[in-house]
């Protein structure tokens, strides 16, 4: 009996510990730290990029200057997780529609098919505009190279449905290009938690 009580209490203590970690006010810096110019350790930083959005506008790091953004990777004809992640991105879009400090960035993984015109139609159908939610296309290699920077997977794979193996994660990047939170874009409950993290980030000084 005592033994069970001990196990239970230990489990409770661990659980409590986890909860404390989660409810801390400061969001962590995620990703593998890098070495800065003076040999110091700096948090993982999203490198320079430049793509084109659904309105043929250039989207690069400057587009998000002073702003946080949520990034994901998808493609229009994706038969698996993309509609679900798009639906969750749309929830985030609707919730933060009037919040100028947050934008959304969707990278297509099939730039051959998802041209500016195709992305424009997609955005129009979703009822979203390019100044809030950028759907970007560009050189396939350049886009695929960005995926691991956002802790995401993007691989060509003929075995995968739609020919592309990719993760459905939504990534929160702060105004200093650091990753601060992520969630599984196919799990509405995880996205609920993620949206609280977005609010937390926006409330940071």
């Amino acid at each position, binding site marked *: 009996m005592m033994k069970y009580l001990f196990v239970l209490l230990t489990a409770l203590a661990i659980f409590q510990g986890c909860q404390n970690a989660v409810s801390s006010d400061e969001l962590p810096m995620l990703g593998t730290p890098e070495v800065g110019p003076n040999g110091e350790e700096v948090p993982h930083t999203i490198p320079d990029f430049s793509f084109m959005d659904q309105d043929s506008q250039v989207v690069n790091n400057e587009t998000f200057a002073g702003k946080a953004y949520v990034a994901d990777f998808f493609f229009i004809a994706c038969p698996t997780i993309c*509609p*679900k992640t*798009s*639906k969750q991105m*749309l929830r985030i879009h609707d919730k933060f529609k009037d919040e100028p400090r947050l934008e959304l960035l969707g990278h297509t993984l099939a730039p051959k098919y998802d041209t500016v015109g195709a992305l424009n139609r997609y955005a129009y*159908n979703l*009822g979203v505009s390019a100044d809030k939610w950028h759907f970007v296309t560009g050189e396939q290699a350049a886009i695929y190279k960005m995926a691991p920077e956002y802790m995401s997977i993007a691989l060509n794979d003929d075995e995968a449905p739609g020919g592309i193996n990719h993760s459905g994660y939504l990534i929160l990047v702060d105004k200093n290009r650091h990753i601060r939170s992520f969630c599984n874009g196919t799990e509405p409950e995880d996205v609920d938690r993620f949206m609280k993290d977005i609010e937390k980030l926006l409330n940071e000084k």
Partner: protein
Amino acid sequence: MKNSLYLLSFALVIFFASCETYPYQQGKILYTNFCENCHMADGTGLVGVIPPLAGADYLSKNGAAVPCIIRNGIKGEMTINGRTYNTEMVGIERLTEFEITNIINYIHTSWGNDLPIVEHLQVREWLLPCQKNTKPF
């Protein structure tokens, strides 16, 4: 005698356990595996891109077309609840008539939908115009 009694009680347990309360369990599982990624667990689709199944007028107006759409997919414009959609849907050719029937009945009785139950023979008839796959089971 004793053996058959065992067998009977075993059969009864299986029978009740498999029925539970919801009659379209197979339809629900198939929906989750084949339809949910796009049409969503709550049948709402994706606004402007993937039409809803929950409350969709198409189901009552064009019910006879649904089995062929599930089997062979559909391309081109279609209008659902007054809104135009134009995303290609791929068909799921491996589904049998029974499975298609169960999926339709799951859709007909979920998310507030209150559409008539369709019979397997009715679905077979509706599948005639798109006879690529004739597997009944």
